[in-house]
């Protein structure tokens, strides 16, 4: 399988940068915490694309290994984030970030 015969690395990096910008836009734009977590997932996927592209460019397995670590970190982050989301909903009755300005139990 002669993969990726003519894809320049910069196109892969541009795709990663585009995904990162899309995720950053969502994280800044949305007020619903669930959508903020979704946007953070999109940003992490942009980083993963850049890692896999660089790993394919230099024929090293390290890029794929770092994507594995990104997935591990994303799983832990989503678990804790969604637990916090449910807790915030139970305490404040809303998942709107603009209402979270009290910082009391």
């Amino acid at each position, binding site marked *: 399988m*002669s*993969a990726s*015969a*003519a*894809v*320049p*690395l*910069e196109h*892969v*990096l*541009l*795709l990663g*940068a585009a*995904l*990162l910008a899309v*995720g*950053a*836009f969502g994280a800044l*734009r949305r*007020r*619903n915490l*669930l*959508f903020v977590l*979704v*946007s953070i*997932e*999109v940003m992490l*996927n942009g980083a993963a694309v850049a890692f*896999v*592209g660089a*790993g*394919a*460019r230099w*024929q090293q*397995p*390290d*890029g*794929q*290994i770092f*994507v*594995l670590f990104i*997935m*591990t*970190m*994303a*799983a*832990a982050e*989503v*678990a*804790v984030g*969604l*637990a916090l989301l*449910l807790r915030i*909903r*139970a305490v*404040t*009755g*809303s*998942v709107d970030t603009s209402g979270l300005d009290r910082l009391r*139990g």
Partner: protein
Amino acid sequence: MTGLFYVSAVVAVIACLAAVTRANAMHALLFLVTGLFAIALVFLALGAPFIAALEVIVYAGAIVVLFLFALMFLNFGPQAVGREMQQLGAHGWAAPAALSAVLLAALASAIVSSDPRFTAQAALTAVSPVSIEDVGASLFGGYAVAVELASLLLLVGLVGAMWIGRQRSGVLALSGTSAEPPARLAGPDSVPVPDNQREGETVT
């Protein structure tokens, strides 16, 4: 494989953009699944079939299902879409769009104008994809400590999610939470507590 990369890249960007801008949370999550599948195809085109499979299994499988469970627990209700639409109205788009456009422009100028190792001459002439054997040998060779730390991170995430999301009522009540008023005991799907009642329960 080249065509697969470009088609999947366009689909990924469009689907992720839809995922972060839809008002309906379920539609947004389904767009996110589409985007993750497209990113998995990008990984496949770049000669990383193992990561492509993991992207489908772990991201589009496990993580999005976790989002769906949280969405069902949250029980936004029929008026949530209208609230999101109202919040996503005409105003408020300029600053996030400008900031992320500046971010994208900075990254793109850094990528495009960089040294010739990144340019078209140094195309990804990957005659063979990086094999799973290489990834596994390196993962449990030089990265063994990082694998152990990742397992510790997952354990901490599990315990932390359990601790944060625990039910503070009945037999599961833990120390320090007994002073809460009964209004909190009905669980996450109880009616939202008004502000004047919320003030009183932070005395502990």
